[in-house]
C-alpha cells in the first residue's frame, strides 16, 4: 500500500495543479485511489489523495525554487517549472534531507539539454555554482593546516588538501555577478517542520528582467568564512594551482603547472604566488590530505 500511495504522490500534477485523472495502467485515478483510501461525506478518495499529491509537489518544487534562483532567472519561471518537474520525476529524493534535492540536477541538465536551450552552458554553470553554495553552507570542515604543520616538508613533497566545503570552479559565464543581482535570500535553512504546504511555489520569486550575462571565462572559489557564504574570483593561475592541489599534486608541481600554462609576461611569480597563498591560508582553505 505504501508503494501504491507513494507512486501516486510522485506523479506530477497537471498544469492546473490537480492530480492526474488516470493511473499508470489507464484506469481512472478515482478507481485507483478508492482501492485504499476511504471517501468521506465531503471528499472522494481522489480528493483526499490529491491533497497529498499536491503537498508533495508544492514542497519539493518550493525547495528547488529556494536553492536555484539563478537557474530560474536564466530559463524563466515557466521553463524552470517544467524542467524542475521533469527532474524530480526522473530523480526522486533519495535522502532524508531536502538539502540534497538538487544533487543530480547538473547531470540531468547535461543528459537532457533541451530543457535549457538556448542557454544550456549558462544554465549548467549556474547549477554548478548554486550546488557549490549548498556545499559551502553546511559542508564539513577539516582542521586548518598551520605553518608548524608544514615547516619540515619541502615543496616537492608537500601535498595540501582543500577544505571539503570549498568548490573551485571554472565557468564560461560570470554567474556570480548575475546571481548577486537576482538572489535575495541566499542564507536560509530548509523546510522547518511538519507544516502542510497550502500553495504552489509562487511566481513572485522570479527575478525581474535582469539581462543574461555575456560569455566570459570566470574562475571562482565558493567558500565560507566565519560561517558566512562567499564567492571569490580567482586568477587563472590561482585556479590551476588550487585544482592541481585538489587533484593531489605537490605544492611545487602545482605551482610549476600554473607558471607553465600562464600567458602573463614577466610576472613576479614569487610575489604573486606568495600573495595568493597568504590569502588562501588566511581564509582557512588548506587542510591535511
Amino acid at each position, binding site marked *: 500500500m*505504501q508503494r501504491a500511495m507513494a507512486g501516486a504522490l510522485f506523479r506530477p500534477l497537471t498544469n492546473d495543479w490537480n492530480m492526474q485523472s488516470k493511473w499508470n495502467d489507464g484506469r481512472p485515478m478515482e478507481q485507483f485511489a478508492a482501492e485504499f483510501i476511504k471517501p*468521506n461525506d465531503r471528499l472522494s478518495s481522489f480528493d*483526499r489523495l490529491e491533497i497529498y499529491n499536491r503537498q*508533495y509537489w508544492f514542497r519539493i518544487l518550493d525547495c528547488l525554487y529556494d536553492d536555484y534562483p539563478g537557474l530560474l532567472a536564466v530559463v524563466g519561471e515557466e521553463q524552470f517549472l517544467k524542467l524542475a518537474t521533469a527532474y524530480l520525476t526522473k530523480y*526522486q*529524493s533519495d535522502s532524508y534531507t531536502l538539502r540534497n534535492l538538487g544533487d543530480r540536477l547538473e547531470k540531468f541538465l547535461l543528459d537532457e539539454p533541451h530543457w535549457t536551450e538556448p542557454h544550456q552552458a549558462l544554465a549548467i554553470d549556474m547549477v554548478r555554482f548554486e550546488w557549490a553554495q549548498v556545499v559551502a553552507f553546511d559542508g564539513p570542515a577539516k582542521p586548518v593546516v598551520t605553518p608548524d604543520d608544514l615547516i619540515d616538508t619541502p615543496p616537492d613533497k608537500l601535498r595540501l588538501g582543500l577544505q571539503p566545503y570549498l568548490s573551485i570552479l571554472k565557468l564560461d559565464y560570470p554567474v556570480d555577478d548575475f546571481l548577486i543581482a537576482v538572489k535575495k535570500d541566499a542564507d536560509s*535553512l530548509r523546510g522547518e517542520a511538519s*507544516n502542510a504546504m497550502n500553495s504552489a511555489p509562487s511566481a513572485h520569486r522570479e527575478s525581474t528582467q535582469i539581462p543574461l550575462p555575456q560569455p566570459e571565462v570566470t574562475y571562482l572559489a565558493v567558500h565560507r568564512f566565519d*560561517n558566512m557564504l562567499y564567492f571569490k574570483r580567482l586568477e587563472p593561475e590561482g585556479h590551476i594551482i588550487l585544482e592541481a592541489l585538489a587533484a593531489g599534486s605537490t605544492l611545487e608541481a602545482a605551482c610549476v603547472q600554473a607558471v607553465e600554462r600562464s600567458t602573463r609576461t614577466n610576472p613576479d611569480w614569487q610575489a604573486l604566488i606568495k600573495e595568493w597563498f597568504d590569502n588562501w591560508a588566511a581564509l582557512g582553505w588548506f587542510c591535511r590530505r
Partner: protein
Amino acid sequence: MPANPFNAHTEYGIGIGLRVPHYRHILANKPVVDWFEIISENFMVDGGRPLEVLDQILEQYRVVQHGVAIYFGSADKFDREHLRRLKRLVKYTQTPWLSDHLCWGSVDGRYTHDLLPMPYTFAVARHTAQKIREARDYLEVPICVENVSSYAEYHVSEMTEWEFLSEVVEQADCGILLDVNNIYVSSQNHNFDPYDYLNNVPHSRVGQIHIAGHSKFEKYILDTHDHPVLEPVWKMYAHAINLCGNTATLLEWDDRIPSFEEVHNEALKANQFRDNIVASSQTNK
C-alpha cells in the same frame, strides 16, 4: 504526567521552535525562554552556520530535538546514515528526550518529505513499535512519538487513530508527543470527537504537548502552522493538561512567521491553563 520516563523525568515549561527568522533576535537579545525545540534534520549537517547557531543556543538554553524524517511507520528499514547522524546530534545537544512522528514517508529509499498517515492495523502497530524500540536502543534516549494531522483514511484500518497510537506506544514502551492541534485537524477531517481521542490515550505516557495554528478550507482543514492557536485548540489543550498534568508544551509556528515576541507571547498563553492546574492541585491538598 509532567515528569515521566518518556521525558527523562524533566519538568520543562513552555518552549518555542527555533526558527531561522528569529536567530538574530535570540542571539542578540537572549530572551528568557524555558526551552527551544530544534528540528533535528536541520542540524544533522557537517558544519557551517547551522552548527554555529546551535552552539550559541546550547550555551544559553535547554534544547529538545524534534525530528521529521525517521519515519517509524515506513515499511523500509531505517536509513542507517540518518540514525548515525541523529545519534551524533543527540550526544551533542544532550536532548533529554527525542520526538518524531507516528507516520511513514519513504518507500524503497525514495522520500516523500511528508508525514503520511498510517493504516491503523495490528500488524502495522507491531512493525512500527519494533522500529521505535530499535531506534531507542541505538540512540539511547527516550522517544516520544507525535500524532500527525491527516487528510486521508485507509480501508484496511482496524481501529481508531487513538487506539492505534495507544497500541504502538504500549508495545514500544515509548512516550507520546501529544499534538493537540493535529487531533483537532484530524477530527474535523475525519468526523470524530477530539475529546474521545484526548480521553482515551495513555496519559501517563505523554511526555510533551504541541500546540499550533491551522488553516480552514471549504472541505477540509490543513495543519499549516501559520496562525495563532485557535480557540477550540486552546480548549482542548486545557482538557489535555487536566488529564496529563503540566506537561512540557511547545508552540509550532513554521510559516508566515511573525516576530519572536509575537510567537513567544502566543506560546505563553498556555500558562493561563497551566496555572489553573497548579491552583486546583493546591486547593485539593
